[in-house]
């Protein structure tokens, strides 16, 4: 142990970055290059054989992207991370290391609609079978475990309903089943919740949202907690068995507690190809430097807007776990004491029509399909992000027809409330 462990805000600014050894540049340079020159042919062979640390090709590693990876790993308390072109790409790469055709994983029904689609359709075509469970009913996860189960997947704060998942209870189910717990921590960010502290083995993010934070760059990341023993049985051959791609290397034996991140890189990213652009990595890194400040403001504004909405006569219900009346408030206080995030839903007494009318009358909130921007955003999930689900699945995932989703930005909260007020009375 060192004398001091730096605080979160210090890590957000510094982790992974150091002055450029060649030029002295203090900001992380954008290494906008496809490839890296080898010292000699032996060096090249060492790099290709995973015997040396170093850069070959930006599809596998890039010095700008690796700063981002180390920074997010440090913020989450993980051993290593792997950045990808999007959050969806992160999920494909992570699951590819865990599942063979015919295998299963258990996922909470309360997920981002895009993940529900990816798991239900694209993953099914790979022979990776999702089994749904209900994060409000922990025993439903236990009942879903079979000998083919290879992982459990949840969101820490679920999109769009803003419900808080009892990570520790589901981590206990995963431990008993001998499978890793994967937590999508996109809406919370490590500033609000650090899932590894609660038993997660793998953390996934869409960097596109609060981490990047400015609505300008897609990206995703996989964080390895370094907690799971991949070799205790033969369930995870990508990590425990000799890999023919690398002349028989066993990844966990060679890379120890960051073997999962290495597997994602050298088996997943190398062969599937969804690498992050170094330019996007730079923009996301710049965003992360102000993550603590932004999240404080996002949460403060969200709470003020949620409180104002819940007192408005046109509003039927506000689903924000930061409100004491919310059913997830106790879990929010346990897992996210600094704030319950800035994405939540509410429904209007006027139903679907009133929701559509509100969206079209807003002048400051932007109507678009993203969350976690400096700007405040609004969407009607039932007709957009969750439109491909049937009505029952829409309601179960918190996106019923009368529901409007807000992502509260970092503007002045009085202006946000004034915009909602004029739109509701228009």
């Amino acid at each position, binding site marked *: 142990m060192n004398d001091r462990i730096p605080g979160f805000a210090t890590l957000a600014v510094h982790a992974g970055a*150091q002055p450029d*050894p060649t030029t002295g540049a203090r900001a992380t340079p954008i290494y906008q290059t496809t490839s890296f020159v080898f010292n000699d042919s032996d060096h090249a062979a060492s790099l290709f054989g995973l*015997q040396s640390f170093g850069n070959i090709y930006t599809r596998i590693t890039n010095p700008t992207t690796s700063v981002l990876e180390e920074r997010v790993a440090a913020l989450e308390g993980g051993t290593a991370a792997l950045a990808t072109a999007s959050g969806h790409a992160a999920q494909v790469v992570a699951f590819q290391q865990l599942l063979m055709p015919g295998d299963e994983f258990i996922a909470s029904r309360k997920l981002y609609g895009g993940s529900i689609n990816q798991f239900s359709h694209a993953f099914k075509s790979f022979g990776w079978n999702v089994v749904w469970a209900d994060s409000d009913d922990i025993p439903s996860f236990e009942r879903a475990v079979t000998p083919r189960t290879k992982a459990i997947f949840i969101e820490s704060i679920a999109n769009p309903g803003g419900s808080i998942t009892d990570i520790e209870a589901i981590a206990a189910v995963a431990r008993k089943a001998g499978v890793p717990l994967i937590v999508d921590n996109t809406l919370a960010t490590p500033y609000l919740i650090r899932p590894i502290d609660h038993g997660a083995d793998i953390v996934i993010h869409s960097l596109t949202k609060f981490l990047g934070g400015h609505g300008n760059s897609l990206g995703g990341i996989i964080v390895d907690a370094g907690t799971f023993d991949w070799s205790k049985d033969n369930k995870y051959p990508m990590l425990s068995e000799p890999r023919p791609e690398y002349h028989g290397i066993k990844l966990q034996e060679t890379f120890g507690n960051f073997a999962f991140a290495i597997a994602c890189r050298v088996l997943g990213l190398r062969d599937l190809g969804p690498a992050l652009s170094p330019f996007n990595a730079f923009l996301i890194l710049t965003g992360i430097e102000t993550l603590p400040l932004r999240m404080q403001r996002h949460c403060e504004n969200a709470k003020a807007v949620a409180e104002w909405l819940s007192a408005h006569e046109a509003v039927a219900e506000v689903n924000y776990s930061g409100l004491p009346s919310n059913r997830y408030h106790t879990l929010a206080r346990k897992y996210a004491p600094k704030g319950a995030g800035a994405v939540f839903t509410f429904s209007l007494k006027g139903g679907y029509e009133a929701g559509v009318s509100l969206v079209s009358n807003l002048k400051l909130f932007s109507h678009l399909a993203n969350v976690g921007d400096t700007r405040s955003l609004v969407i009607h999930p039932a007709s957009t992000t969750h439109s491909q689900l049937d009505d029952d699945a829409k309601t179960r995932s918190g996106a019923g027809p009368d529901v409007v989703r807000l992502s509260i930005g970092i503007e002045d909260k009085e202006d946000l409330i004034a915009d909602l007020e004029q739109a509701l009375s228009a």
Partner: protein
Amino acid sequence: MNHDSYSDDYIREILNSVKTVAMVGASPQNVRPSYFVFKYLAERGYDMIPINPGQVGKSLVGKPFVASLREIDRPIDMIDVFRSAEFVMPIVDDALTLNPLPKVIWLQLGVRNDEAATKAEAAGIKVVMNRCPKIEYGRLSSEISWMGVNSRTLSSKRAPPPTMGMRLSLNRGSIGGGGTDAADRAAKNKNDIV
């Protein structure tokens, strides 16, 4: 001492001070972790000695295998052990017969034997267990950061450039580049006037 965690200073001091490293259990197979570590440390200037009684007569990246610690003809600073925990005590016993004694006994990732560690420490030998010197070297030098690994180090200091103290930039192979004809002509004209 506590072997659950080590300070960066403890590890850094060991990696900075040792020069001769004997690796017990070095494998000639180039996909084995011991081979990776041996080659990596040899490339960083450590005087590496591979120990494996089954490989005597052969060599590992140019270094001849020896059968045991006692057959090494020079003082050993560090013994890096690639054997499982039950084989560690006899290796420590062997090490304690050496004169001079090694300064460090290092047990690889996944290997821990507290009884053997206590015995070595009683003789004044530093012990590291369940760590990899390649990973620790890569972590403290930030090289491992290229793989997205959390090095758990922060610094605002600039690392010395790789060419510091060397003349690599003079010796790099090169071909002729673009001309400076205009400047050459200007220089010539200037000479003409003078």
